């Protein structure tokens, strides 16, 4: 019972990680670069949802939409500021640009939104749904459901629509994609915006699940997103989703078995072990390995 409860908590937390990881994985594929500004993307999304809920008394759906839209816009700005000007140079330059932008955005939002932690009001009366002996709240179910729906939609988008296929083509091979008539610049912009928008949605979900938004909330969760992406395998959307959920479960089981102080040590250790055994991640493509 205890273990089932822990695993279920892990799945809820993991499904938010999964959404972040999917977004991160899209960016990683399309830009080919680690980004350090993703934490701020998540934070801005969370604040967009927060303002929607507190000032416009919006419902869950609108809050998620606001997070999606705000981070989508931020994604466009990031592409213009950090990636496009340096496309022809060494990739480290774009990386340092994301570090600079991250510092700028985080401190700017402290100045504009205030430094305090903000309360995200409950969007629905939380109550329990008894499922056997474990306790599940309706909010947990809603979060898992939202992430599941989004993941399904994304899967359809990437495999069934022309734009989705173009995105995958660009992330595999930009030159070949250009030769086949894909508008590479526009696709990169779109991919980055989409990846960021998913980060924004996960920011809103984090805010709702933990009832709080904070200008400095992003940094630590962005690391989790990165970890989950590598966990599942870069360039694989089901992989990223699985990586996120597994990370959530490992974290919770780590606390249950050892002390809570060891939570991140355990998840990072498992990550390194997985990389040693299967460097391409759990569901990563084989050709990644060299």
């Amino acid at each position: 019972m205890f273990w089932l409860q822990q695993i279920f908590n892990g799945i809820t937390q993991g499904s938010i990680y999964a959404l972040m990881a999917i977004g991160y994985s899209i960016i990683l594929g399309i830009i080919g670069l680690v980004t350090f500004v993703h934490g701020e993307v998540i934070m801005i999304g969370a604040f967009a949802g927060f303002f929607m809920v507190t000032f416009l008394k919006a419902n869950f759906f609108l809050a998620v939409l606001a997070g999606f839209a705000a981070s989508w816009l931020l994604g466009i700005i990031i592409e213009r500021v950090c990636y496009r000007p340096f496309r022809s140079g060494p990739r480290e330059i774009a990386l340092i640009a994301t570090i600079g932008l991250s510092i700028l955005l985080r401190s700017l939002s402290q100045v504009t939104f205030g430094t305090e932690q903000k309360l995200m009001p409950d969007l629905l009366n939380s109550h329990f749904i008894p499922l056997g002996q474990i306790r599940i709240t309706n909010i947990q179910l809603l979060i898992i459901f939202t992430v599941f729906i989004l993941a399904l939609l994304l899967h359809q988008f990437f495999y069934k629509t022309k734009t989705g296929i173009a995105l995958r083509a660009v992330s595999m091979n930009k030159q070949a994609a250009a030769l086949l008539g894909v508008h590479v610049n526009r696709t990169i912009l779109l991919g980055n915006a989409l990846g960021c928008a998913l980060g924004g949605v996960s920011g809103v979900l984090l805010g709702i699940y933990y009832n709080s938004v904070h200008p400095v909330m992003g940094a630590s969760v962005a690391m989790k997103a990165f970890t989950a992406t590598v966990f599942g395998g870069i360039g694989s959307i089901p992989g990223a989703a699985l990586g996120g959920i597994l990370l959530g479960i490992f974290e919770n089981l780590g606390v249950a078995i050892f002390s809570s102080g060891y939570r991140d040590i355990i998840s990072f250790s498992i990550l390194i072990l997985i990389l040693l055994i299967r460097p391409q991640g759990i569901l990563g493509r084989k050709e990644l390995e060299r």
Partner: protein
Amino acid sequence: MSKKRLILALTIIFSIAGSVLAAPAGTVKIGLSAPITGNLAEYGENFKYSVLMAADKINANGGIRGRKLVVDIQDSKGDPKEAALIAQKFVQDQEILATIGEFSSTSSLAAAPIYERYGLVQLSPTASHPDFAKAGQYMFGIIGTQDAEGPFNAKYIAKKYLKLKSVAAIYVNNDWGLVTKDRFIEAARGEGIKVTSQQPFFETEKDFNAVLTKIRATNPEGIFIAAMYNEAALICRQIKKLGWNVKLMAPSSVFSEKLLEIGGEAVEGLATNTFFALTDPDPKVQVYINEFRKRAGRNPNLHAASAYDSALLLAEAIRKAGFNRKAIRDQLAQTKNFPGITGKITFTPVGDVVRKYKILVVENGQWVVKKDYTQ
């Protein structure tokens, strides 16, 4: 080309910075080292508002010995390395007579050797690490150490007020959290309360479900939450969402309007202690609270009040001792029954303050002082 220009630009910036730093004559300068930016900015802001308020109040009453009090605010980002650098800057500036800071014990301790070596007072409004005041003659802490608060929490809150037979602790894994938890647990065991579980968490964490589920499995009657008000509020909310009915208690760090705002119904019944209450009838406390609300747009918390007292305390010491760092330190060490808004302040020989605590409980979404249990 641009390297030369860079050097030129740097030279210009340096000279401007240098000229700005020189303060006008006829002033008294104290330093404030606090996290104005970074992850702890929220706490540094309280310091800034309160210390500036204190300075304005002193200046409105004619300043110190006819001189205007000026506060030199330096941002440490909450980084011990930067706190040490600021310490160096302050001790270097001969106009600075004493300093207030740092917020966290780690930063205060990192800066302590420098203040001590050069002989400049570092008065921390919040550092409650038992080693802090002992780090040197020039170190003073006014929040009161956990050596006194822990036994109070165990004896009066856990045993007499909540009547707990068993308790578990969840604590933030930093120096403050660890000491707070340890002192409480020691004292609770001394009172014959069974300790079922002790679990740490890290500062940036938001998800406490796993830890709480684990603690719940040990089935304690009460839980002691050694955390700042933000995290404490989230922990209480998650306890509620787990459907767990447990008695809540926490150290004085949770006393804040923010806890009520974020915690909502979930913090109902939470018991803590304080030596500063918003309902204190003392007019100078009420004047302070109103003024703070006007400037910051919210009610002050314990940290803010403590920073305000620190500034007044320093001003008083400077007034009595004159404009000499060593004399100010000696004067400060002799402080007896200084009437602060957080109560009477008397330093122990090492430079700590022993506080008189009151039990404070959340009832109907308000902080309520419980008088009956402390006598």
